[in-house]
Structures are given as C-alpha cells and as structure tokens.
C-alpha cells in the first residue's frame, strides 16, 4: 500500500534515497516549465538569426548566422547537408520548445492530447542537436584557430542561454502532472 503524498512532500526510495516522486503543486511546476520554455523561445531567434561566427581569411571577412549558413549550403547545392542542419538545428529544437510551452499550459489542453504531445516531444527532443552544434563550433575554433581568424558573434551568447533554458524547461516538466488529478 503506497502512502499518499501531501502537497510539497516528496517520496524517496527507502534504499537508494533517490526521489521517486515529489508533490510540487502542478501549477508551479508547469509555470516553471512555461517560463523556461518561453525564455528559450525568445532567445532562439537571436541565436538563429544573428551572426554567430565572424571568419576572416586573407583580408576577406564574412559573418554567418545559423540561418544564413543553411541558406548558403542550399545555394551551393548541398541540399542534403542543408536539410539535415535545418532539421536538427532549427526545426527540431524549435518544435521541442513549442511543445514544451504547449504542455505547460495545463488547463487548456485535454489529457489525451497532452499525452500525445509529450510522446512527440520526447522523440523530437532526442533529435534536437543544438547543444551538439555548440560543441562542433568550439571544436572548429580550436582546430582552425591559427589558420583563420575567428570571432564569435553576438548569437553565441543567445545560443548558449537558449540551450540552457530549453534543458531547464524539459527537466522541470513533471510528466506526472498530466495524469495527476488533484
């Protein structure tokens, strides 16, 4: 027989003491998720649209944002690479953030709808590669540092924070709140 949890209580495993379930008020958890997701959403646009890298090579300097980089890839005819980058660095992360915002609106959506959304978000989240891309940039910077002059653009700050905020949002979302009826 499981004990009933009161509000602001948490259940821990008697052996390993890991949290099984914490009874934070559903509104608060949802509100936190919503706030973090909205923050990530707001930062997503400058991260994608503002120049992220300034590359200077032999007196020629070029500024690239993520979006203009993708457009450039399409112009050069590398449709496959362009499409992959577009999907993994723009479409999936954006979808994840939007779905998180949607999920955190507890009262509006039907329970079944939310379960579906959660499932989609879990799948989409796996493929949103924003964090990986950030790593890729850093690796590039280290590898080419001496050959070409690199400078980070303003989008990098937005990018890092956007990744952080979307991680916070997905961590603070409590899936129990979907079927919890209190």
């Amino acid at each position, binding site marked *: 027989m499981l004990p009933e949890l009161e509000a602001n209580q948490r259940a821990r495993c008697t052996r390993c003491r890991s949290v099984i379930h914490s009874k934070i*008020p559903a*509104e*608060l*958890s949802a*509100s*936190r998720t*919503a*706030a*973090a997701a*909205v*923050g*990530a959403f*707001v*930062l997503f*646009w*400058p991260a994608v649209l*503002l*120049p992220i890298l300034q590359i200077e090579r*032999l*007196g*020629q*300097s*070029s500024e690239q944002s993520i979006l203009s980089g993708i457009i450039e890839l399409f112009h050069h005819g590398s449709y496959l690479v362009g499409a992959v980058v577009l999907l993994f660095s723009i479409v999936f992360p954006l979808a994840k953030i939007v779905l998180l915002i949607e999920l955190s609106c507890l009262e509006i959506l039907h329970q079944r709808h939310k379960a579906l959304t959660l499932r989609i978000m879990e799948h989409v989240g796996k493929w949103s590669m924003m964090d990986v891309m950030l790593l890729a940039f850093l690796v590039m910077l280290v590898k080419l540092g001496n050959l070409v002059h690199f400078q980070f*653009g*303003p*989008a990098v*700050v*937005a990018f890092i*924070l956007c990744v952080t*905020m979307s991680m*916070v949002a997905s961590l*603070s979302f409590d899936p129990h709140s979907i079927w919890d009826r209190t």
Partner: protein
Amino acid sequence: MTETEAEFPVANVSDARRPWWSTLSKMWIVCLACLILAIALTWHSADSPGTSITIRFTDGHGLKAGDTIRHRGIEIGHIEDVSLDPSLKGIHVEAVLHDNAKAIACAGSRFWIVRPQLGLTGISGLETAVGAKYIAVIPGDGTILQKQFDGLAAEPPEGLRKNGIEIVLRGDDRFGVNPGSPLTWRGIEVGQVLSSSLSPDAMHVDTRVRVLEPYRKLLSHESKFWANSGIQMGLDLSGFELNAESLATIAKGGIAFITPQSTDSREVRSGDVFTLHRKREDDWVTDAIPVNLMQLDAPPTETVVAKWKQKHFGIPRSHSRIASGLVVASEQGTRILVPADMVHVTEAEQDSLTLTAGNEEATLTIPAVNERDVEQLLVAINLPDALQVSDILSPARHRSADAVEDCFAVRRTQQDAKKTVVIEMIGREQLQAHQGIWRCNNTHLTSETWHGAAVVSSSDEKVIGMLVVSDEGPLVVPLPSM
C-alpha cells in the same frame, strides 16, 4: 437565546483569493531577463544603417559583394551588391558607408578599384593580388550630398590625393608628358601632371597639373612652364653632351617651371591657363625672383621713420631716416626693436627727434640718452598704447642664435594698402662672426630696402636677429635675450 445566537452574523467564509501571480514560478524572472538579453543583442548587432551610395565603373576587376571600401588604410564601408548595367556598358556597385564616414558621400569624391599595378616608379596595390579587391576613395571637399558616383578607371595620380592648386597648361603638343609626371621647380618636384587631353579644335593639348599646397606661392601669372621630357643630346666640337633631368623624367616626361620678375600680383587660382613651352629660355632662370616659401607668416616688421631737425649754418633743416622695426613682446610691455642709428643724433638735435611707426603715424618716446650705448646696434623702444599693432612677435617665434647659420632677411612692405613680403637668402658662407655680430658680404642687401629687416633662421623659421646696414656693410645682429 439560541435563536439569536444562530442569527448573529458571524462571517462569510470563502476561498481566499490569491493574486494571479502567486502561482507563477520564479523562473519567469529569468525568462524576463532572457527577453531583455535577446532585445539587447538584436539592438547591439543591428547595423547602424550607414549611407548607401552607388558607384558606376566600366570594369569590375573581380569586385564582389562583401568587399570593402577603404580610406587611409582602414575599412570605411562595404559593398552590398555588384550588378551589370542594363546597357552592358559598365557595372553598378551598391555600397554602404559606415556612419562615421558618411561625409565621403559628397560631390567631388573619387572612387577607384585598387588592383596590383606595376609602374616605372613603383608597385602599388600588391595586397590585392592575393587578397580581396577593395575600393579606395579620395574624399571630395564639397559639402553637397551625393549618392551617385562615377568611379575612376584607374588609381588617380598621387598629386590628386594631396592639397594643391590645379592649373591648365596649354601647348602645341603633349611633349611626352604623362599623368603622374613630375612638375619641377629647379629640379625639385612641386607638383604632378594629372591628365593630358586634346582641345576640342584639335589644335592644342591641355595638360592639367596640380601644384602642391606648400609650393603654390611659387606660381604667378608670369610663371613660365616648359617640357623637360626625355633626353637632350648635343654633339659639337667640344664633344658629346647629354642632358636629362632624372630617370623618371626620361621615362614619364616632366614639366618644369620658374617665375621671373612679375608685375602682375594677382593670385593664381584653380583652373588658370598657362602656356606650355617646348623649351626653356635661358633668361627665365636668370630673371627668377626669390619667393617666400616660409610656412609661417612673415615676422611683424613695421616701417619706422625718424625725423629730426639739423642746423646747417644756423638754418634748421629737417632730416629723416627710414628703417624697419620689429615689434616684440617683452616683460616691459610691447616694444619695437629698431637699428640704433635711428636715434643717434647729437644732443642739440635730441629735442627735435621724433619717431613714427605703423599706419597710425604714432610718435614714439625716445629713450633717454644715457640709456643708449653708442656701441649698441639695436634699441628697443616702448610702444605707446595708442599704437595698435596687429602682429606682435611672440616669444615662441624668436630665439637667440649662438653660431652662424643659414638665414634670410625678411621685411614687409606696404604699397597701396597691399602688404607684400620681400625676402633675401643669407647663406652661412656669406656670414662671418665677429664679436657677437655677423658680418655679411651679400651685396644685395642695400640700406634703403633692408635696414632693420628681420633675420629668420631657415631651419625653424624663428627670428634670430636683425639686419643693420652700416657703412661697413650689412651686419646681422643676433637678438638680445628679452
């Protein structure tokens, strides 16, 4: 009793109404911070709009969008777009000038595409052989805003980038002169040829030259120009003779000029036309006059007139002497420095001696006799306050000189309310130091013109002394320390 208790109004209990924001997470503050940051980043990186201009070129030389416009070695704008003219006769370059360089979008600015060029006198634009091309500009001096420009086909001659005066030389031939050829004065480059073109009637060649700013004083309406291109060769009984100005003039041609004595004192202005002669005539050079090339203004000399009455056989006659005086600022007030013989009169004549200076004919108080030393060659006289002197020699403009050095005598003359400066070089070799005074064997220095003239050092243009023309000849008296 119970009834009244039951009817006694207690309170209406309902759910406490909590404000709507109490359920909100603290994360919303972070969210707000994110919003502010996003706006700040966008605001920060939004380019200041800049000034967009269009430049038309006949050839693009591989210019493309993203290349820069540079001036004085730094980027002042970038190219947005390069497109072909619909008539296929040129290209249009859409460029944006940075905000701090928007003054370049004015009438008179000249643009050209920098590309590597190999010439007889040097290599330029080498960095564009490997790197990106760029557009260079000479800003116009106009204040009229202009957005459409016609680019130059090639880099303009160097002279165009410097200040100066542009004149036109009209000759019968091009005389082998090219854009970029030097314009020389006694072999020193003082300007540059900008272009040559055929006159509309095909009878003359107009050569535009630019005389650089420090040398524009060399020009007068009587200036004589001649072509000194190439090599002059002659073979006669004495042997073979070869004349050439310099390697550059052999290759590129050149124009020389000299200014003989001139009565026309009008200033030469931009666009004035002179004749370009085929050959030099010898008397041009011998007739040449000294030209004041001083960077600074001439030292302030005033004409001082001394008048006194001298008795000849009991009949008083008035005499006068004229010299220049130098107005200097000293601790005792403004003083005028004059040659001492201006006040050398016998005691009997002392009372009648008056000194006048300047336009206002102010009478100066002559210092008492005992203050004057006969051996002394210069006398400083206090200027009355009434005399308004516009120019006073500041302490920064004079110094004492210890050793003989190259210098020149300078004095201002005033004729018909027009001030001119006459100047005469005194070379070091003409001077001999003797008891602190420099004897000078320059025969041009006559008493009428040069008595009391300021002596200016040719190295720093500071006044170092005064010229006193005595019976033994001209003397340079170094300034006493003030």
